[in-house]
């Protein structure tokens, strides 16, 4: 099992990495013991976005498909969770609402991905098609302010946003529900992120992952090695988009609120910025980099939102010019060189 976590598609295949990983995990687990409830909830909020970034890393960094549609799937699952949580009666049914909401995002990705990939849409046009779908959804939801726009008792509310859904509850053994908020939500999100991260490591280092990076490098050569590249790309697109859906459902559950602004153009550009800055071709770089960039952005926004946006733009510009593979990847490479010098690292070749 441990062996399958390491491979050519991930950085950090050595003992020092996993020791560092264990230390960071322990610190994350201990964080609620030393921080106040607001800060813990805030970190949970930032971790929620990381799923979407990981999904984009998978689609774009590993698969070579630049999708502008992450917030499309985020929105489908976010609104889906709201509608389902209200209609199913809230409480323990919110867990089912979350699962169905993510499945709806995956289904939407299956349909959209099928038409894109089987339709032979390639390169920059995939970005245009996915961005169009995102903008259509955002504009559609924006004009749902009237009372006629509802699903059962769930009002969509246009740009004012949808509200009134319960936060995520987990059914407990004595027929009661544990409502996830603050520290408990933090731990659930952290556990989910850990599972998703480790699962993705196994996935990208598997035989399937081998084919995915081969398609990114040269799709025709991959097909001439006997792989139906369309099926591989579609599976990748669905998984990456479903992760955006997971972000969306968790986001709505966290704030019990969602608006079309979470889907529209500025929101749709953000995952691209996080992933490009972090290093799109590696899930570890994306996970750490996206979290750090969210943290930086939020910290700066307290002082000035405009200054935060300008600084984000500058960071992206510097990254593209100085470290086109991504800031975190460059840091990782420097660390690897250092480790090689002291003889601690061994290149992995499973």
């Amino acid at each position, binding site marked *: 099992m441990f062996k399958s976590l390491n491979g050519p598609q991930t950085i950090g295949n050595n003992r020092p990495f996993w020791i560092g990983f264990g230390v960071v995990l322990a610190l994350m687990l201990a964080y609620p013991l030393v921080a106040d409830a607001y800060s813990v909830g805030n970190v949970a909020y930032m971790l929620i976005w990381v799923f979407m970034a990981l999904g984009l890393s998978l689609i774009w960094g590993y698969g070579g498909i630049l999708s502008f549609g992450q917030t499309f799937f985020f929105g489908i699952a976010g609104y889906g969770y709201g509608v389902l949580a209200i209609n199913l009666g809230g409480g323990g049914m919110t867990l089912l609402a979350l699962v169905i909401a993510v499945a709806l995002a995956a289904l939407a990705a299956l349909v959209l991905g099928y038409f894109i990939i089987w339709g032979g849409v390639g390169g920059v046009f995939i970005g245009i098609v996915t961005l169009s779908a995102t903008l259509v959804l955002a504009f559609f939801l924006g004009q749902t302010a009237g009372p006629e726009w509802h699903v059962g008792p769930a009002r969509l509310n246009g740009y004012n946003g949808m509200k009134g859904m319960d936060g995520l509850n987990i059914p407990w053994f004595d027929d009661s529900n544990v409502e996830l908020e603050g520290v408990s939500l933090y731990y659930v999100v952290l556990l989910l992120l850990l599972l998703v991260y480790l699962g993705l490591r196994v996935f990208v280092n598997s035989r399937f992952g081998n084919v995915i990076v081969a398609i990114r490098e*040269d799709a025709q*050569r991959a097909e001439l090695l006997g792989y139906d590249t369309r099926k591989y790309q579609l599976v990748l697109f669905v998984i990456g988009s479903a992760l955006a859906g997971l972000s969306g459902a968790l986001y709505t559950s966290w704030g019990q609120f969602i608006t079309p602004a979470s889907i529209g153009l500025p929101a749709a550009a953000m995952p691209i910025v996080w992933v490009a800055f972090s290093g799109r071709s590696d899930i570890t770089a994306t996970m750490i980099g996206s979290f750090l960039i969210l943290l930086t952005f939020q910290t700066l926004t307290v002082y000035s939102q405009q200054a935060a946006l300008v600084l984000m733009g500058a960071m992206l510009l510097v990254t593209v010019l100085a470290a086109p593979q991504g800031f975190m990847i460059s840091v990782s490479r420097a660390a690897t060189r250092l480790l090689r010098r002291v003889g601690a690292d061994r290149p992995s070749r499973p």
Partner: protein
Amino acid sequence: MSEILRTSALCKRFGGHDAVTDVDLIVERGEIHCLIGPNGAGKSTLFKLIVGTHIPTSGSIVFDGHDVTGQRPYERVKSGMSIKMQTPSVFRELPVWQNLQIALQHHVPPASLAQEQDRMLELLDLSAQHAKPAGELSHGQQQWLEIGMALALKPALILMDEPTAGMSPDETFKTGELIQRFNAQGLTVVVVEHDMAFIRQIAKQVTVLHYGKVFARGPIDDIIQDPRVAEIYLGKTHA
């Protein structure tokens, strides 16, 4: 011997240009068949039609008894066809061993994948370069790697488009030996080449293409002595 590949009246038209016209090619199982002809004769286009990266304007392709004309390239590869392209087509950013693994993982179980990889690396004389990105190999080494990837699929028929381009005479001879070794194990080989010494080394049957049409065909010794073939190589026929 039974035939493994037959193209019938195969045509490919690009705009107003006929790249391949009415080509009937028959390849017998187990033979090494060479396709020769001047530049622009349609050899590479014919390969692309056979493997499915180009769709024919008309005509049919039968491989191993099945009409594969409408099949996608991956389906043809799965049914036992393999190709080495004209320009080295390897995954340049990926290490050499991973290039081979992507081809090998089709039919080699995970437990013996590393062992099979090492065997192929040794066979291709690339053991020392196994961790290098494939794009950093020399041109000749990239050719070998791609040949290795094509052979790793354990095909019944391999199409090789100029497998020795850019190789030294020594490397060219070794490539010929490699092809003959796999041929002795039952692999059918169709090769496009310009190097006559190499063709003499490996081929028994030759088809000559000229202006997209079959110009001549027959045993290698007859083709070499055919004055018309010498003429088209020297550019006299249409002068």
